[in-house]
């Protein structure tokens, strides 16, 4: 920002870009559920099991949060990993987005799976194999029918990434929202809470999107489309649920369970489950993206919102349609 501004002959009122032009275009596609019948069934069961597990552990959590959350981390991590392996296509085995101008022709189903396995760990920005949209059906089919070995490695790598990368930003978010800094003995609790959120909300994203920078840009901008697998709705639900879960803490009921971070954790789990039920079970809003632009005044009909956040209809249909044949 230097001080020399020599724009010549600006129009008297500079034309404001219309809303859609102000924004980037999200590139990610909705995550499909694998087409095997067991995948669908298991995804329902998984939601139920996780909620029931947290419910069973509730009293233990209240009694002593830290060790409980630590052991639960293992259980929930395993459950989520199994869910990913059973129900979701791993990164690279499906067309996770339209990378502008970077579409590489698929080199064959088998090859793509192998690269994808590495891609999940080493970054999929360029190494990942992308296919044209038209090919996605085939690509996905391969992922679904892939060997277990082909799913274990991505799961393992995404588990590691999930436990390393998001907890710190999530902890910071909790702290700025007012999580206790004093006494400092509560900081590990916050970190564990973040790890739980990370496992519930971000493990499937790592599994399905790898470390594709464009996908993660969309994640940071909360721009993923809601998907039939309930991944993104689970993430959003977990964040919103945690937000709402902070509410009962302030009440003066002097209950043991009001202590940090019990209610927030339950809020996270409940929100996650609700999000999953809405998109995964009820199939509501699949393909829709969260719209963050301000409404435009309607007196100018030529500038109607063109709905950049609304789902890209073609994309939605594709992902929907692709699993129907099987």
């Amino acid at each position, binding site marked *: 920002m230097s*001080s020399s501004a*020599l724009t010549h002959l600006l129009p*008297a009122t500079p034309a404001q870009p219309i809303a859609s032009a*102000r*924004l980037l275009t999200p590139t990610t596609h909705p995550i499909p559920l694998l087409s095997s019948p067991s995948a669908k069934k298991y995804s329902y069961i998984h939601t139920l099991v996780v909620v029931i597990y947290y419910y069973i552990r509730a009293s233990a959590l209240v009694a002593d949060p830290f060790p409980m959350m630590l052991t639960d981390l293992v259980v929930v991590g395993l459950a989520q990993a199994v869910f990913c392996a059973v129900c979701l296509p791993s990164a690279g085995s499906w067309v996770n987005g339209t990378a502008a101008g970077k579409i590489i022709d698929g080199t064959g189903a088998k090859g793509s799976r192998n690269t994808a396995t590495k891609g999940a760990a080493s970054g999929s920005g360029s190494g990942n194999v992308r296919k044209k949209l038209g090919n996605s059906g085939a690509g996905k089919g391969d992922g679904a029918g892939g060997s277990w070995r082909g799913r274990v490695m991505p799961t393992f790598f995404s588990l590691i990434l999930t436990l390393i990368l998001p907890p710190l930003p999530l902890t910071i978010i909790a*702290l*700025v*929202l007012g999580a206790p800094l004093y006494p400092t003995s509560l900081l590990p609790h916050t970190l564990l809470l973040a790890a739980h959120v990370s496992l519930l909300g971000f493990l499937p994203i790592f599994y399905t999107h790898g470390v594709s920078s464009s996908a993660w840009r969309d994640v940071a901008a909360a721009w993923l489309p809601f998907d039939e697998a309930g991944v993104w709705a689970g993430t959003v639900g977990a964040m919103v649920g945690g937000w709402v879960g902070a509410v009962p803490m302030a009440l*003066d009921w002097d209950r043991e369970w009001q202590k940090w971070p019990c209610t927030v954790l339950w809020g996270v789990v409940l929100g996650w489950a609700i999000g999953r039920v809405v998109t995964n079970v009820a199939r509501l809003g699949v393909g829709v993206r969260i719209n963050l632009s301000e409404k*435009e005044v309607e007196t100018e009909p030529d500038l109607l919102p063109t709905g950049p956040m609304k789902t890209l209809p073609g994309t939605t249909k594709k992902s929907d349609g692709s699993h129907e044949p099987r």
Partner: protein
Amino acid sequence: MNPQAGIAEDGQRPVVKSTAITEERNHRNLISFKVTHILLTALFLWLTTVHVIGILFFAKGFLLTRLVLDNRSECGVLPDGELSQVSDGCWHPKTFDRAVVLIIDALRYDFTIPSHRGLKEPQQKYYLDNLPLLHELAVSRPAHAVLLPFIADPPTSTLQRLKGLTTGTLPTFIDIGSNFAGTAIEEDNIVSQLKDAGKTIVHLGDDTWHSLFPGYFDPNMTRPYDSFNVWDLHTVDNGVIEHIMPLLDQSAAQWDVIFGHFLGVDHAGHRYGPDHPAMAEKLRQINDVLQQIIEKIDDDTLLVVMGDHGMDTKGDHGGESDEEVEAALWMYSKKPTFGRTETSALMPPATAKERPVGQIDLVSTLSILLGLPIPFNNLGKPIAEAFTGPKNTDWKNLVKVEHLAQSQIARYQKQYSRSRDLGLDDDAYSGQRIYLARSAEFAAEGRWKDAHYAYVEWHKEVISMYRRLWANFNMGDMLVGITISALALGLLLVFSRFSTADKASSAPSLLRSAVIGTAVGAAIGPGLGLVAPSLFSVMTGCIVSSSICGIMAAMYWTIRNRTGARSYLPSFWGWMALSFCLTQSAGFASNSYTIHEDTILLFFLVTFGIISLISSLRQATTTDRVLGTYQSILFILLTRLSSFSRLCREEQMPGCRSTFYASSNSSTSAPWQLLIPYAVALFLPEIVKAFYRGTASYAASAGFWIGFSFRIGLLLVAAYWTIDAADNGGWLADRISATALKTTNLTVARCALAIALPVGIGTFVWAKPCINISVSEPRPVLDNPGAPPRPQLTIFGYANVYGSRYLLMIPLLVLTVALLLPPMGQFSIAICTWQIMCLLEILDTNALTVSSRYKSSIGPIVLALLGSYHFFKTGHQATLASIQWNSAFVPLRTIQYPWSPLLVVFNTFGAQIICAAAVPLTVLWKRPTGKAGLRGLWNDVSGACLTHMLYYATIQLATTMWAGHLRRHLMLYRVFMPRYLMACAVLLIVDLVLVVASLAGVRAVGLSVGEVFGY
């Protein structure tokens, strides 16, 4: 968007080339701009008036009143109607001829108790162990001295307490407002009884007594002193001491009763907090004075020493926390007089929770001891220790005295229920009757001790009944008030959010509708008085109906004239703003969410920051993305950073650590906090400058005002608080006298104010737009070689002409508020300023500024949240005790109307004032300048201002409704009522700031920018 678009015109600017026609159009636009300003001001003032009416009606029904009876007790007639047969006194033989009543203002009970008794672990505190005399004598000579906890009935303001102490009545809330201008007590009281008995009464000290009892005191011996100079710890006390000693030395006393009122302890508490060397010094001084006085008084003189209320941990009072109501009472006489009802009661109570007596009990006790009739309205019972005799417990005498008090109270009850239907059924009295019958029965049998205890139970019943009774609300008025507020809120919502009409051009017709409605309402109003005479008089009916009809007419007009919008569903941001308002409003139903409001606001503000961060990441242009992300993160971090400035209210304990002052027992700043004002002076102008530099707008007056004047002003503020700290800490005590320091300080403060107000306002009103125009050498035109080369004109700061011009107003407000706030408050207000500017950049980069295309509500609402948040971060709470009265004395030596209240308002609501004044910036910040001129400006500005008002109006209505709904709640006076009062005050203040600062500021900016770029 290009952050610093300059515009270059080849040859000439459009204004210059304008012909006579554009000249004329320009003139027309100018006139219409000014007229619209006046119309909008009228509209806002009308809304303010409606708010005032709604608030007043609710307050009329909600703030409690008690009927004052004019009846008086007579000396010769006993309360049961028989003639008194007592020769030595009125109703009962007197014990003393004279009395010296000393009030040590704010003498908390634990000040008088040795720390090893009151506390489990011994503590070193300045307020402990410095007034040992009372306890020592009560222990060593129990027949001569008695020390008891003395519980005040809230509100614990001195004037209210003096009323209670002299009349023996329970206070009602309505009186609290009269603390600043006391009015004479009309009802029967001990001072008038003394006067009627021909006694000579002397008063020394706090002049509040004279407003309560004008003409009662002996003019020759009485010495009143100004009571509101909180900074002055010694004048009143030294005056009392100086004049009381000669009176006590008189060989033939010319006085009968002396009322001495010391203010030093109270002022030390207000100024420094209890845990300060000044408090220790004050208490030791009182100890010495009492020592001298007990040596001087004679056998027939009773000495009473008491606190009229306590003080909270910071030394303030006014509310009803335990620390505020727990005062001390000490009675002493040279002849053995006092007894104890139980052997376990030989030692004075270790804490104020044991064996407390009420402050209303003093009147009956003193009256009987001095041989006077008990004042008619008294509800207190005689203090047992004064009537049981020094040796063996004389139960009979005690019961006799109690019987007198009982029949006096019974007489009052009869009279009161005759004057006003109490609306109580018989059950309410059954408990009283049982105890009364039992007491009489025991007395007849001679079982005096049992009679006494039955009497005590009876008295408890009576008091609790009256406490309930005087919490009797007028539901009619409350509902009317709520209706008016709710209708006004509805109009505000529809007009500001749903109306698609241009607010500026529709203002005249809207106002016309409102005026017609008001006139019609005024015409039919008196009819209401006839229809429902129990609810309305002619006057109130007229007011109610005119405001309701006015709103309805305006509402009708608004709804009819909106062009049908396709969807009323808000955007994501609209939902967010709505949910912030609604959840907070709903939260006020719970005392927890009211108590922890600051944390909730932090939560909301950070949530906004996170969402704006997410939204910023979606922006297409790199500058928008980077700038938006950076400012969002900054906004979040600043919000969290300022949360470290905290002043906890009692209900937040434990789990809250006050950081606002040096310690939680103090109301002075820690020495390290003095670095804050200097840091603010160093960095804040630079930060503001950086926001100007972003669009190359640091030009014209901005340089002088922000770079120089603002900085000098902030340095003066820093100097002021340094000198103040030196004065408080006595750092220069041996070199410079306190008066010299105070004079220097006044001068410094006034200089800072002079920079803020005359210089600041002058700069703001007359400044040119913050642009810099440079003319470069002629250059050949490339694409048209035939054309002659023309000089090229560059306008720096073109991208933010309106915003940079309007932002000049903020420093002057910041300066004023910062001067009045202690260092930690300046930290918070500096962050507030920074956050406002971050918010503006966030709004701009995310297309959330209010413009003709986007009518976003989030900017004005977040500003309101920000203002409310920093209200708490500047050391305030929604309690009466947290008002920083000291700020009235920053530039003034004594109380001066209207300046002192205004200064306190600026100190208390500074954050809300600054944020309300910043609301037009959500419209003006980087608003494109162009051929459209000022068209649409008023529409956007009034929309933003009304949206801002909408937040506070929602909160006001919510707190009002909850306070009304929870009127029997245990926490009403501690939590809900103060919050409701605060919401009302904030709404009115914001209404006025929007008119005085925002609308007027936009006018000044519009004229100044229009002069250059066309109107």
